[in-house]
């Protein structure tokens, strides 16, 4: 372990310790924040009693589905756009402005189209995540050395074979950047949509607990979101570093 990770762990531990101390000494009133240790204990008891298993499964199911849909369709759309340079030139300014549009505004329209439930939540999450994947695919394909493309032509590979055997592996490190963003955006899209309008899911459960002053449930679920985002991020970063190392070779 290097010095940075040690310092980082110390910093995070000190921060959590500070909050714990402030809560225990009632500098932060228990109405506002409960101590982190208590949050964790409550989270463990919630998981063991299975009170929120339905909501947790609902949210994670949605996140997994929307991340997969966004990553796979984003990759293929990116491939298609990349093979049409004129269309791409027209599309690029729109892609650059895409994330300036607050996508959540369109959520009610999706609710009318898909109904309350999986469909509209997945739709908004995919909408949020897919463009990051398209952009990453375009960048990745741009960076493929020309010689690889030529070898594919020499070997008379079909369009599909070229995509699968040449373009995908060569662009993988860049694509993975897109995957990381797409996963983060799916997470944000799913949880936020559940907050705004939904009958189940972690986001809904947090909003419900907040409205009913169940602050221990609320903080336990918030902690669950924080921990799962951190773990998923750490896992993705681990794979990312391995891919980057492969590119260095």
């Amino acid at each position, binding site marked *: 372990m290097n010095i940075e990770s040690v310092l980082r762990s110390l910093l995070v531990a000190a921060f959590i310790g500070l909050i714990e101390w402030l809560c225990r000494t009632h500098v932060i009133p228990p109405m506002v924040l409960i101590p982190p240790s208590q949050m964790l204990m409550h989270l463990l008891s919630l998981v063991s009693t299975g009170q929120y298993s339905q909501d947790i499964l609902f949210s994670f199911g949605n996140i997994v589905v929307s991340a997969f849909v966004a990553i796979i369709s984003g990759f293929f759309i990116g491939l298609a756009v990349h093979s049409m340079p004129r269309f791409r030139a027209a599309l690029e300014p729109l892609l650059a402005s895409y994330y300036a549009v607050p996508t959540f505004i369109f959520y009610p329209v999706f609710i009318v189209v898909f109904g309350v439930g999986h469909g509209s939540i997945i739709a908004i999450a995919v909408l949020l995540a897919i463009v990051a994947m398209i952009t990453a695919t375009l960048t990745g394909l741009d960076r493929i050395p020309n010689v690889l493309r030529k070898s594919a032509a020499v070997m008379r590979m079909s369009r599909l074979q070229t995509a699968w055997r040449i373009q995908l592996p060569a662009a993988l490190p860049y694509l993975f950047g897109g995957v990381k963003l797409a996963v983060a955006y799916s997470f*944000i899209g799913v949880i936020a949509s559940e907050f705004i309008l939904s009958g189940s899911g972690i986001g809904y459960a947090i909003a419900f607990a907040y409205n009913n002053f169940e602050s221990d449930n609320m903080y336990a679920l*918030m902690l669950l979101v924080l921990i799962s985002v951190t773990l998923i991020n750490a896992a993705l970063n681990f794979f990312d570093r391995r891919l980057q190392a492969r590119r260095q070779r």
Partner: protein
Amino acid sequence: MQRFLPTFLLVIALIAAWQLLHLAIGAGALTSPWMTLTHLISMMGTVELWANVGETAKAFAYAMSLALVGGIVLGVLLGVNRLAGAVAEPILLNLYAIPKVTLYPLVLLCFGLGLSSKVAFGVMHGMIPILLFTMNAIRQMRPVYLRTAGTLRLTPVQSLFHVLLPAILPEIVAGVRLGFALTLLGVLIGEMFASQRGLGYMAVNAMGLGDIPTIMAVALLLTVIAVTCNSLMLMLDKKLQHR
């Protein structure tokens, strides 16, 4: 202008697709582009819309200035001090990936209903990208600049304003472009949950009433504002990159 023609055609195609979708699923679910535009224009005649736009603009202005100052100051500090930067970066990236809506009960408890929690939401969303862009720009800056500043015996403040900031200006603009969009999103989400005023509240209120024309009109207004500001910053960005 020749350059923008394909994009313009694509926008027309998108509007046509909107119209087709409207015809397919009916006016109850999605109003047509023309209906949305006329509804927006009739809304623009009311005082209510402008009051809400003003509220959102005020919250956004506060949030953006805080995010900008905080992001650049912290970014410069973390960029100059390599160890601090290396320690903080993964934490910041993780904070960036968290769905910040989850924290809204906490923000409400800390800041209460109203302007301050909207601003806090905006800053939470917008500051981290600006910070990360600034930090990485300083790290990738050519070391000779700082050594020159040292040779010329510039004070830290002088080297900040005459060396560091001019050197990283293009990256700051890129960071601000991203931060702008996210701050706007943050302020709107804050208004959706924590406010009785502003465009976000208007949208969420219309959602509750099932008032699709108003939702679409607000969405159109926000999209036009966001895309216009973004395109302007993109142009500035390109100009700075070519220097």
